[in-house]
């Protein structure tokens, strides 16, 4: 008994400490970013102002006045929303057919889709830039960003939806067939209501990935369709690093998505544990 009590006291203290430390390590850069965003560029690099300084909103005001923050933010909203919507429009029927009408090739197709995520993006950078700029003429358009964001997230969207749809008993879909619903009806009236948590959390995750995407949005846009990632990148400033300004821009870029995630937390957790409650 004594041994049990001892070990439980130990783990009561040890594991929470480890957990808190890990959390702090992950949280610290974000904290530091927000913290620094309230310093002037000059203060941000001075060691004497590391912790004690006069907070200022100058960076934020500067950002909205001089760098057109809202245009970038609106671009981010537009591209992420449409990319997510289109990814679902393609992904839902795709996952539906693979979950309920599997063929011997289904597994391979799923693996192949996932394998596209293993391709280094840089490998197709030149053809992508060349094609979109010189050939198709869609460089720096919302259309291009939406298509690219949709395509790079599609494998994950389909995989997630497939997993959720697999949880739904086949008989329920068959009962629907007996009741005379067509394929669209099966998806609309049975599948989506049943897998609602899963669909919502897939959409949310996809939206977050789209919002945070930087590699392509930075490289395939200049001004017209530039997203918040591009704004951050643009503030990397050739004159040197303006930490205060950069921190403010970054904070303003991740802010909306953090708030969204916070509000949808319940939905996310519900979606991720969907299979357990049925």
């Amino acid at each position: 008994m004594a041994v049990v009590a001892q070990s439980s006291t130990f783990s009561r203290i040890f594991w929470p400490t480890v957990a808190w430390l890990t959390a702090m390590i992950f949280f610290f850069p974000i904290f530091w970013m927000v913290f620094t965003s309230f310093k002037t560029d000059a203060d941000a690099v001075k060691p004497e102002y590391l912790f004690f300084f006069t907070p200022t909103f100058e960076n934020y005001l500067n950002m909205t006045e001089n760098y057109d923050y809202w245009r970038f933010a609106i671009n981010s909203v537009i591209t992420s929303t449409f990319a997510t919507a289109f990814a679902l429009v393609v992904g839902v029927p795709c996952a539906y057919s693979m979950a309920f009408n599997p063929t011997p090739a289904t597994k391979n197709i799923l693996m192949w889709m996932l394998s596209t995520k293993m391709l280094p993006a840089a490998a197709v950078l030149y053809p992508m830039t060349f094609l979109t700029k010189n050939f198709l003429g869609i460089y720096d358009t919302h259309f291009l960003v939406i298509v690219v964001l949709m395509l790079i997230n599609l494998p994950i969207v389909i995989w997630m939806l497939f997993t959720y749809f697999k949880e739904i008993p086949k008989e329920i879909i068959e009962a629907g067939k007996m009741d005379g619903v067509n394929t669209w009806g099966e998806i609309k009236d049975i599948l989506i209501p049943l897998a609602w948590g899963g669909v919502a959390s897939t959409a949310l995750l996809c939206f977050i990935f789209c919002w945070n995407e930087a590699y392509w949005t930075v490289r395939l846009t200049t001004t017209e369709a530039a997203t918040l990632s591009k704004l951050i990148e643009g503030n990397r400033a050739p004159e040197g690093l303006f930490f205060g300004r950069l921190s403010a821009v970054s904070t303003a870029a991740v802010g909306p998505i953090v708030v969204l995630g916070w509000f949808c937390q319940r939905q996310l957790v519900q979606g991720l544990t969907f299979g357990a409650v049925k």
Partner: protein
Amino acid sequence: MANLNIRDAKKAYGNTEVIHGINLDIEDGEFVVFVGPSGCGKSTLLRMIAGLEDITSGNISIGNEVVNTIAPSKRGVAMVFQTYALYPHMNVFKNMAFGLRQAKMPEDEIEKRVNAAAEVLQITDYLNRTPRALSGGQRQRVAIGRAIVREPKVFLFDEPLSNLDAALRVQTRLEIARLHQSLGTTMIYVTHDQVEAMTLADKIVVLRSGIIEQVGSPVDLYENPGNMFVAGFIGSPKMNFFSSKAFTRSIATIIEGAAHGDIIGIRPEHLRVTTKENAMLSARLELLENLGENVLAHFVSQDDTALIAKLDRLPTEKIGDTMHFTANTNLIHLFDNKTKIRK
């Protein structure tokens, strides 16, 4: 209301054929039970009738119309699934109304039908509940109700009772029998439980490995099984099978026309205890199972064949003692050793 005819129906998945050419005629209003061990193809055959599996070759017709390529909902059949397969996000009323709404039936007619079915199945009080809030038995009633409201020509039941507990199973079985009496609609019922088959069926279809072993009324299959498989499958406990070596007398003197190599089948309920002089079989008592109304006694015969006898009451003999049996000769079944077909 309609008769149903199956002609040379085959089903293959890739190169694997699982249904090997079924021929079957089901009369209008008949209660037909498909029975057989798991993997025999009974559910597949039912699903072919339902339209959930396509037919590789052959024809299935309902009311003299070939339905091979007709959508499930247009075949005039309704199915009750083993797992109920209710729509979890709809309440009981909506579950039952769903098919009718798909068919664009007027709302007042839907209400009338659902309420009538709910009345019959005694689920009127639960119409606003979701399936989650119902017990297993209630869910099964809703599933049956969902089938009834569509007023199908043929009802299909896929092992509807196997998820219920024993008491509820007996009760629901009765309700299904009653339902068949009152509706008079053709019903096809799949089960692996031969008691369900015996009690419900007008006609039993025994399947094994994708072929029909025998078709007949329950009594017919019980009294005149066509082969060893059917003989062993119908009846509980199952029929005892012996070689002639198990008998104390030459088999030819017991049954006319019996050859030495034949397999002899006697049902446990047909073995009668007798004296050593009158016995055709002697066996050592191994185990007793007292069921109250009768006793299942397990024996080992002189050539080490296990057998069961259904006795009226506990025997005075002890475990290890030898008991002697005889049986009415017209209740003894002879099977050819090679073909397993009844002689």
